[in-house]
């Protein structure tokens, strides 16, 4: 069954499917069952599965993460939702010292089938406390899987796979992706650990996480007018990483831009760059370019926020630089912008 739907609908649908299939799956977290339903991504669940399987919590991220862990240890399959990834900083003790370790420390006796969903990225001037991504921070910790879907199909399929996975999965969803629409084949399974080439090209490989895929597509469209064709690889799974898909693309194009939706320094961007250099040693035509957040806290005001975040324009300019092309006039282009697509207050 194929259906056209938004990313947020795909998330609700994927959750509902797993809740139907397995009575041990439940979803909880602050504001999960309220009328806003985490930007609509948990819509329909409390009606369908009742308040035992879809419920809110006190403001206690640390304890609630422990509760999720304890429930998972007891054979349930919790999905714990955070409306902002920033709040997970309160739960780092459980995540880094318990969830990631407990199976190992028990010699493999304990199993932790747990999904932590968290919203990342921009909203309406979300400031330094409601705007992080942190995939690199989570992926740095052995024992965690880290997933970043970009399309409605992946939101649906990767969420289902993550729920079925017997291990802890951090599932990061960009705030702006919720509105993206696309076809979703309900039978399609996507395994964790598989990257995908989203657009074929020969000029430069642009390796993207999350929202950067959207920016890269826009960049591709603009560049195509000059007959420059970039190849876009959507990482999808930050840990485990699909090295082969990425490397085979870079081997083909000989050039690589890492467009990671996070701070670059000591992040996933560094890992990707280092990997590409290592595996393509001697065959790269140019150094890898890394695009990411400016290395400062996220500012609230729009003009600074616009240059804080990497964008299609940065990709275009970087491609031009790598290929020795002149900077094209972008004044006629319309890029994704809040002004047309996204309103406040949150």
């Amino acid at each position, binding site marked *: 069954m194929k259906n056209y739907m938004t990313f947020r609908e795909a998330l609700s649908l994927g959750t509902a499917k797993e809740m139907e299939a397995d009575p041990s799956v439940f979803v909880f977290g602050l504001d999960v069952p309220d009328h806003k339903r985490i930007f609509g991504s948990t819509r329909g669940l409390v009606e369908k599965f009742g308040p035992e399987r879809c419920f809110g919590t006190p403001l206690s991220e640390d304890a609630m993460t422990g509760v999720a862990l304890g429930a998972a240890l007891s054979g349930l399959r919790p999905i714990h939702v955070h409306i902002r990834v920033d709040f997970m900083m309160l739960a780092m003790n459980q995540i880094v010292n318990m969830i990631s370790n407990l199976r190992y420390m028990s010699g493999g006796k304990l199993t932790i089938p747990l999904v932590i969903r968290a919203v990342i990225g921009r909203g309406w001037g979300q400031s330094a406390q409601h705007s992080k991504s942190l995939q690199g921070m989570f992926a740095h910790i052995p024992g965690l899987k880290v997933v970043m879907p970009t399309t409605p199909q992946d939101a649906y399929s990767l969420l289902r796979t993550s729920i079925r996975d017997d291990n802890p999965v951090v599932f990061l969803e960009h705030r702006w992706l919720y509105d993206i629409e696309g076809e979703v084949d309900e039978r399609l399974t996507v395994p964790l650990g598989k990257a995908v080439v989203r657009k074929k090209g020969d000029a430069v490989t642009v390796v993207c996480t999350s929202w950067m895929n959207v920016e890269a597509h826009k960049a591709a469209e603009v560049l195509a007018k000059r007959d420059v064709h970039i190849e876009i690889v959507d990482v999808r799974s930050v840990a485990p990483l699909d090295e082969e898909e990425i490397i085979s693309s870079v081997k083909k194009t000989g050039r690589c831009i890492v467009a990671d939706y996070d701070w670059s320094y000591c992040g996933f961007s560094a890992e990707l760059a280092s990997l590409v250099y290592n595996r393509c040693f001697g065959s790269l035509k140019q150094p890898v370019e890394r695009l990411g957040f400016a290395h400062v806290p996220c500012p609230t005001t*729009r003009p600074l926020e616009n240059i804080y975040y990497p964008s299609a324009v940065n990709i275009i300019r970087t491609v031009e630089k790598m290929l020795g092309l002149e900077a094209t006039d972008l004044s006629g282009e319309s890029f994704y912008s809040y002004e047309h697509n996204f309103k406040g207050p949150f």
Partner: protein
Amino acid sequence: MKSDVLNKEEALAVYRKLILARLSEEKIQEEYFKDEMKTPVHLGIGGEAIPIGVCHSLPAKSKVFGTYRNHSLYLTMTEDTDGFFGELYGKATGPGKGKAGSMHLSAPEKGIMSTSAEVGTTNPDAFGAALANAYRKSNEIVTVFFGDGAVEEGVFWESLNFACFRQLRILFVCEDNDLAIHTATKDRQGFKSILEAVSGFRCHGGSAEGNDVQSVIKSTHQLLKKIVDDPKPAFLHASYYRFLEHVGPKEDFNAGYRKRPDPEEMDRFDPVIRFEKELCQNGCNANELDAIKKEMEAKIARSVAAAQLAPFPAPEELYKDVFK
């Protein structure tokens, strides 16, 4: 310490602050739909009496810490509508040069140290400031404002324990609107009342009607006196009614999680209406109040106009203010 009975001059000064806060937020309601204030706004309409009453009672130069629902607190501490609207419009004229936005207003030079959008997070910071006072053998009292939801965060209890163990001079103010976003207290809390829950700790406790600025002043006054007489933390609990949606400029009575109060209830919940009534009963006339209102309206209008015209921070500002 100030008296807890307001003379006319003081009463009008308090009124001035109430009306400044109220009109500023109503101005935001008016302007927000234009999408020029590109920052989430957590309006405090209905709750103004708490920060205003408490801060009125504090000695000059007291330090306060707060939450993202900080407009009244910022305005009562600073009266700086220029900076306030500058920040809301993301302009270089804001106290955070636009980097802060609505949720992180601060003006350390005026005593409002920091406000945070991570619930509960400024609690321990305030205790650090109180510790600094103790370190310097100063008797100043630090005040921290937080919502009923913040009480569920572990850091609240850690902070409470520390403050009570060290017997710091600190005033906790719980601004209780019985809601965390859309969830009522009863759906979140495992204790009968927050005052009862903290009663096992070595601190003073008291409560106030949060929609009645005089009640807030009275209770604050009593607690401050207790801190002076018997130095240890004091906990003030004040209930109020949140008129608007959690974040954003609108009402949301049709959302389903609570019903619209009837008009008389509304009036009773409203600290401005309530205080106006009392002022009029106690020798102020409507003209005096009107004049203040007009003055504040004009002040706000000037600040909004200035903010709209003010420049955004220059691009190089992105990289400034990370380190000293």
